[in-house]
């Protein structure tokens, strides 16, 4: 017993040592890699200066906003209509320095003219900024830092419980055992809750709200312009999938509409480009069901006559589309239990003779989806 314990301790120490060693080595190598840049003959842009300029850490003139304040790295909860940092970087990387300068300092048209008016940048600063953007276009936006709060609390609680345990049996510094027990109970229940929630949410993505390749706003289309959902997602009435409209369908309107009220020309130009140059638009899929679930839109929209909003929420108020419901099985079943079937209006249901008699006799006043087998396993899992 003692032997094994000591062995595991040594192996733990060994692991720690190796870990630190690798960490340091990595850091050193990384620094080295960074230092290696810019040591060749031709003048190289100082990427750090470029980055600072982009973030506004180095002033670019009186009342001039930092680039990053409009051209953000990530989409926030509210939509930012301006082209993102990455998109700017891609555009800038295709320009030579002179064009870049004229575009930045003497822009034409719309919002850009007003916002860019106050910039004063030296040629050297422009050079660094351009270099930074070029780099960004190649490397891409850095990974979003993960929120570690939950994991940190989880680990801290673990440590606290371990200390409590050790104190309980060996050191015995705290006189009242109730305290140990409370700490351990609280720790375990909190950790249990975290684990349970993590597991329940495994594979679910409630409120999923990813960035899309085009800043398409459902609020502008379905809300402000009152376009019917079925205009673009017509397949929801006929098939399993609601369908994402083809670029060809977008062009029905955007053949004419080339200037967005919020986004200017930049976003609409992407659709036009895709359509004219045969490029696919890779939308990020928001509503995902596991592979073992069969869902059919036409069953719900056409046969069941449900409103889109019942599952998708107020899409017409969303600039950035988000998953309104968790799409869990419990959520499906609950709805089946409470939703009435169009029992008298659709001839298909004539086959349920007994239920029709019940309605006539007043035994039942309505038929819920679950009453006619909507919650059978194999209706969705086949």
């Amino acid at each position, binding site marked *: 017993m003692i032997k094994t314990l000591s062995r595991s301790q040594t192996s733990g120490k060994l692991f720690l040592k190796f870990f630190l060693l690798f960490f340091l080595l990595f850091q050193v190598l990384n620094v080295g890699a960074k230092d290696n840049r810019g040591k060749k003959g031709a003048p190289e842009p100082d990427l750090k200066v470029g980055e600072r300029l982009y973030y506004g850490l180095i002033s670019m003139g009186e009342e001039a906003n930092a680039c990053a304040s409009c051209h953000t790295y990530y989409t926030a909860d509210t939509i930012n209509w301006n082209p993102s940092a990455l998109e700017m970087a891609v555009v800038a990387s295709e320009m030579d320095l002179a064009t870049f300068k004229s575009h930045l300092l003497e822009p034409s048209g719309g919002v850009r003219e007003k916002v860019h008016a106050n910039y004063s940048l030296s040629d050297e600063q422009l050079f660094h900024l351009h270099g930074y953007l070029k780099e960004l276009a190649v490397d891409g936006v850095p990974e979003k830092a993960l929120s570690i709060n939950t994991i940190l609390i989880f680990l801290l609680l673990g440590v606290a419980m371990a200390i409590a345990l050790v104190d309980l049996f060996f050191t015995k510094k705290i006189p009242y055992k109730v305290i140990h027990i409370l700490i351990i109970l609280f720790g375990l229940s909190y950790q249990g809750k975290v684990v349970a929630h993590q597991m329940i949410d495994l594979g679910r*993505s409630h409120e999923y709200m990813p960035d899309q390749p085009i800043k398409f706003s459902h609020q502008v289309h379905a809300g402000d312009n009152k376009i019917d959902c079925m205009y673009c997602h017509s*397949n929801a009435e006929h098939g399993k999938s609601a369908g994402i409209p083809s670029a060809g369908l977008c062009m029905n309107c955007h053949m004419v509409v080339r200037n967005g009220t919020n986004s200017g020309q930049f976003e609409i130009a992407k659709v036009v480009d895709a359509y004219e140059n*045969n490029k696919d638009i*890779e939308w990020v899929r928001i509503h995902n069901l596991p592979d073992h679930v069969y869902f059919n839109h*036409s069953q719900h929209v*056409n046969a069941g006559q449900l409103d889109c909003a019942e599952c998708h929420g107020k899409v017409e108020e969303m600039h950035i589309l988000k998953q309104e419901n968790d799409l869990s099985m419990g959520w499906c079943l609950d709805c089946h239990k409470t939703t009435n079937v169009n029992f008298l209006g659709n001839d298909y249901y004539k086959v349920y003779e007994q239920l029709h008699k019940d309605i006539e006799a007043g035994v039942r006043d309505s038929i819920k989806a679950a009453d006619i087998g909507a919650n059978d*396993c194999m209706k969705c899992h086949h």
Partner: protein
Amino acid sequence: MKQYWKSIEDLVPAEEIEQEKKSSMVLSEGKESSGNSRRDFLKYFGFGIASAAVLAGCERPVKKAIPLLIQPEEIKPGTANYYASAFYDGTEMVPILVKVRDGRPIKIEGNDLCELTGGSTSARIQASLLNLYDESRPAQPMHNDTAITWEQVDADMLKLMAEWDVSKEFVILTPTVLSPSTQKLIADFKAKYSFVVHETFDAISYSAIREAFEKSYGEALIPSYRFDKAKLVIGFNADFLGTWLQPVAFSRQYAMARKLTGGQREMMRHLQFETTMSLTGSNADERVPIAAADEAHYVSALYAALASKAGVSVPVVTIPDVVNKIAEELWSNKGASLVVSGTNDVDIQSLICGINELLQNTGTTVVVDTPVHLFKGDDKAYSALLSRMEKGKVGAAMFWNTNPLYHAPMGGQTEKALASVPVKIAVNSQQTETAQLCDYSLPTPHFLESWDDAVLIDGVYSLTQPAIRPIFKTRQAQENLMAWAGFDGKYYDYIKLYWKENVYNMSLSQGKQFETFWKTSLRDGLVVDENIQKSKVAFSGSDFGSIASAYSAPKSGNELELLMYQNVPIGDGTLANNPWLQELPDPVSRICWDNYVAVSPALAALRGWTQGDLLSINDVELPVVVQPGQARNSLAIALGYGRTNAGRVATDLGKDVYPFVAMNNGHRQYYLEEVKAVATGGTYELAATQSHHSMEGRALVRETTIAEYLKNPASGNEMHEKFNEINTSLYSEHEYNGHHWGMVIDLNSCIGCNACVVACSAENNVPVVGRNEVRRSHEMHWLRLDRYYAGDTDNPEVVRQPVMCQHCDSAPCENVCPVAATNHSSEGINQMAYNRCIGTRYCNNNCPYKVRRFNWYDYTGADTIPNNTVDPAGMTLDLKRMVLNPDVTVRAKGVIEKCSMCVQRIQDKKLTAKRDGRELEDGEIKTACQQTCPADAITFGDTNDPNSKVSKLMADARQYGLLEELHTLPSVVYLSKVRNKDKNKTLS
């Protein structure tokens, strides 16, 4: 009650024990020998927790959704489209519908507009879909193993043609060309290059039939046979339900003529003389085992017996008793009988012509004025071609979907002949042995990627259209010819022009514009011209008497003879590289993944051979299968195996016996009169599905004879009433408010062709497990065809029974599931929720029908853990996974699965009815097995609807449930089998 037995082992219990020992040894030697200890468990458990934590920390993968840039009106994401097309692989031609989901063909179904097949298909047609996604297909043009472009190919060929020495031939070798457009194209190509010669070569030869008809009718043809018009059918080694000529059409006609449903009181009688137990023979009312060498004698005797009745000159032939009895029966069915032979021998085929003519069958069951255009290959022409090649008269040869090196090696002559051809071009969609010898490999697309047309019978035109863009860099062979002859356009344009000029005539067009006519033809897949000029063929006769007298006495002695036959799954071996077909058990022996030597029980007993003993037959080593019903001194081996270059799956499976095929009288003869068979002392474990479904001799298949049936329709099924009376249950009955789905299987119609098994696999993503797993009884088919023998081992009676989940209303499996993963639906379906199943297999253990299948491994790439995978046939490759039906879950390791009554099809049709706001029609929903069944043996429907077809069949006196004494109340019921024989007319 009759004593049924499933296989020889059932009769020899000691043998069975030995088998058990063997298989348990395999189990303990298997790779998961249980060396796992508690500590391992803890280790894995800890690892599991850790990986769960890591997984929880991971973000979900981002999934992309890429819409079409311009969406055509008829393409809807997630909705299947059906395109009419036609299957033709050089054997049978069947019009089909191709189900295409999101750009991928995922299922083949029969085209119900075709009167000949009535919308049915065969196992091989169902499975041909998987050849489309075969990763071993030649993927791009090659020249001596270097990849080249099509432009280079064309440049090379144009140069070759320009510099051609006109004293030499450029040979194009094709299977029988059914396409009139291709025939015209070849003719045009020949007109452009006078040195081009077109030869026809069929993988399996039927040239003797054509020669016999040429002798007797003045025209080399194969008539349309009408089994449905016959009251008595006599077959001589003709497996017309399995492999001979047009098995799909014949199976349908056969089953229709034998149905006793819908008030029909008469059924066709079928007698079979054969050497080995074929699918057809096992369906016969009576069967006579004969040596292949004696077939000619029996046919001659039959001719002689009939000649004496007809009063024409009678040859001197000793007539066996059994033949006299048959002649008697045939004579009383004059004009409504049919005699066929499957042997490629001119004398036999000539006598068959004479017999059918004596019986006045010509015009009713043998229709000579609408011949079928199949199998036009002439073996004599092939021999002539080989000798021209050897003499160096052939400058180039193009092997267009032909594989002569494999199908007709002719004792090395073919290889020698090919070696003397300077330029050899392989034009195939699959890998072939011949292609290995070729300089150029110019791959063609699979038929589901191609345009074509076909004329099976004059006046019946069909079209083949692509259902997917070519997956590989392939080009249709016709477009090769067009490019080399300098014709403009695509082959599609060529077909369309041909149709405009030749098919589009006044009677067919009905005043339509050509474009409209073309589009409707393409939509329907076939066009039938009723007013076609029928060919006038008259019987001119032949000297049948002298042919018959040459076979006056039986020839067979004590020497062993060898018959080479096509089995139902693999056929001639062209489609062999197909996991679905390899895994499909032979309908008679129930063995898959190998061929074997079928040996008669008497011979096996004499020589002391048992199943699995290796025999060396003229130096080919194969394991023995003791086949009840085999002629005593005959051995039989299936063709189509032992491919040396077929692709990943079929290469080196079984042994090739085509080298035994020799020319006899100018025709390829599929039997050897004398062989040496020596036991090598080794054994080989065959992958058989035969003895592990044993149902221990209970009244599973109930049968009667027609005479008994006419007296009492419930004869043979008397216990049904009794069980109904005494059975009662502790469980309350289910309440079905709306539908109650049920199925009726008519055992009198089922011929056991196995088409349903492959259709089910394709529809429901049923995995392929491979030979080793089948040996361990891990096969996954949701539907199996149990086969039982009854009576004498030398000539037993055979019965078959398709068994799938019986969807019991009082299901034993449902009660024992600890997690309620299997339970009963409100529509009577025994449901299986895979995502809920934890794999205890209690349900499997408690199911009296043994229809539940457990995923011992991951066979289809359903889970991401690599060590779970067992994939002997490449079914986890992305390319092959394209065949999966997206509406059916792909099951992972550790769950039970079983027949769902094609619930996805039920749901789909219900939804269509709901969307249209109308009631569901009876017969609208068809399960995959029902859809493909050529015999119409399966009926599915709502048993709550008293007017549905299924309800009416359930009221039939022949109806019973499998193991109904257990009171499981199955929703799948059977109609008992009726044999057309009675005591007054029996052969024995």
